[in-house]
């Protein structure tokens, strides 16, 4: 059993390695453009409402805590606690997505979605109208991929919860809980970086 636990968690870590590179590629491209057009990017950060970002960060951190406690409960064979913590984790995960949804809606209303038809208006800082599009594309791309990961995470959590309900886990076998916990924490970490990069930097409208 120990061997299997080991293989599974190690396998998850290797998978997270690919996830790091996956988001790393996005962060890399984002950083290049940020360094090319610092003022344009500062102007877009200034548009963002960091309260949303901060609130969502807090929500995710709580869900990470409850996830860690869920894993702990599984380890200690506290079946009821495991289920409750999983439910709380999923609840906060959903909260995150709902808040994100409101935010996306706000961007849509504000004409900050540079898609085909051009739901796009950047009269606040017309000199950056071109380059700001790139940031918004990256904003939607990065937060969108993060949201997809959240949705996948919720799916995994549902499965784990059902398994927990059926009493599949015990102190000697709770590998799936541990492994999906790792995934959940990773998604949290991605957001920990997205928050300052997308919302905070340049918030004071400083230029250089």
């Amino acid at each position: 059993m120990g061997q299997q636990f080991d293989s599974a968690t190690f396998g998850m870590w290797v998978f997270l390695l690919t996830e790091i590179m996956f988001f790393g590629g996005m962060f890399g491209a984002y950083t290049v453009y940020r360094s090319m057009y610092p003022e344009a990017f500062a102007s877009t950060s200034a548009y963002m409402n960091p309260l949303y970002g901060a609130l969502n960060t807090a929500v995710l951190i709580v869900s990470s805590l409850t996830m860690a406690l869920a894993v702990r409960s599984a380890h200690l064979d506290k079946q009821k606690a495991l289920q409750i913590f999983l439910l709380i984790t999923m609840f906060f995960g959903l909260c995150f997505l709902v808040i994100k949804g409101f935010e996306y809606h706000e961007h849509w209303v504000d004409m900050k979605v540079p898609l085909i038809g051009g739901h796009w208006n950047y009269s606040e800082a017309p000199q950056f109208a071109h380059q700001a599009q790139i940031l918004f594309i990256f904003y939607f791309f990065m937060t969108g991929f993060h949201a997809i990961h959240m949705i996948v995470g919720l799916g995994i959590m549902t499965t784990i919860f059902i398994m927990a309900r059926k009493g599949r886990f015990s102190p000697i076998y709770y590998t799936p809980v541990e492994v999906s916990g790792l995934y959940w924490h990773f998604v949290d970490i991605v957001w920990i970086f997205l928050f300052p990069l997308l919302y905070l930097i340049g918030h004071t409208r400083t230029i250089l």
Partner: protein
Amino acid sequence: MSTAIQEPQQTTETVNYLNAEYGWKSWLFTTDHKRIALLYLISISVMFALGGVFAMLIRLELLTPQGDMVTSDTYNKLFTMHGVVMVFFFLVPSIPATLGNFLVPMMIGAKDLAFPRINLLSWYIYIAGALFAVASILMGGVDTGWTFYTPFSTTYSNTFVITAAVGVFISGFSSILTGLNFIVTIHKMRAPGMTWGRLPLFVWAHYATSLIQVLGTPVVAITLALLALERGFHIGIFDPAIGGDPILFQHMFWFYSHPAVYIMILPGMGVISEIITCFSRKGLFGYWFVAGSSLGIAIVGFLVWGHHLFVTGMSMYAGLYFSLMSMLVAVPSAIKVFNWTATMYRGSITYQTPMLYAFGFIGLFTIGGLTGLFLATLGIDVHLTDTYFVIAHFHYVMVGGMVVAYLGGLHFWWPKITGKMYPEGWGKFSALLVFVGFNVTFFPQFILGYLGQPRRYHAYAPEFQVLNVMSTAGASILAVGYVIPLIYFIWSLRYGKPAGDNPWGAKGLEWTTQSPPTTFNFDQTPIVTEEAYAYSKKPEVEVG
């Protein structure tokens, strides 16, 4: 082969992984790494044939300088699909997903890979990716070149770029899952006594390959996702009109695609280490250097991608750095070649087909590697890049190196995989054809490249014709050299002589079980007590 005359034709066939279960379900839902390897073998052979047909059409078109056989659009689609199919759907999965899948667990004394179901999943993902690629061909093809450079691919091409990009994106995950599986398997599933210092070099090579797959592939996935989004939604990520930078695409693309050539060649090097030791009956000279050089290539290979960008307007200083690193990555490759050569010193050498392929590999890979240095040299690369010199160089490494190693490995382990021998005479003959055909095809292209014939040209200047005709002639020899093994391998399934457990007298755990192996490879978990390639001692693998 003289030893292969075994007991009377087997009337009572032993139970093995091939006949343990019957029916298509037993194949499509199998979690046996050996069966999955065969599924992969069939799929990549189909893709190889497809890519080969495209290659033949390209060569036929280039017989005349006017470009009169197919239209320029068709020609552009041909070389694009040749590249996409060969690179992403044949070369990347070729050795790891077939021979690697089959042999890595056996070589380390394991029953299967760490995650058998993920292994099967990776094959299905591969098939899904391949279906997208084939769909893009059937719908009318793609004409961007396998490199998908923006802004041509995002804005100007009128072909099915998104379909092809999605295919490549999907197949990337199959590659990641294979790599992940190998890493965990090699770390966690080694038999008792199988220390890192006793691993066969084939396994070391696959470990290094897997690292690249896991670390590099996600970046190309994200790059192609950005490309597909930009094309699909007309949002400008790499679009110069709103301040995007097409060169950033090239950085991101080559961050994976350069290390990817090491994904393709490293497993081939692993195969060669196995073949050379077996047919020289001798341990590998400088085991740790060859093992370490695999890791060295995997790591330094990630630091050199910029040598594809020397003439794009990249910073000169970045050019200096990438050039220096590209020189550095040649050192571990050179170490391998020298050690293989030294292994033969005072050996006991025979010239069976796999060994002939190994000789061919060393020769062709040496030329491929040395000409790589030309391209890493800044001042020369300015003239040579995007000419036929580049084509010749990477075909020397990819076809002369990788495909030759793959064929060598296939001949070497065919008896283990199927329990049957291939016809040795035909094997030698086709190995010779491949070697000769290959050189006649691609050597003239070095000269063409220095003369300045640009790659991806549908029509070319008339003075280049003689060399192009030579190249096409060579390609037809090469094609025959590929078709013959295909025929005799299939023939041998039914008519081949039974191989016995260890026809070559080779070392390694995979040769200690029956051929073909049982579903769980070993009756009992083997205990390893000696180094890899202990040819000079009595066999000491105990079964306990």
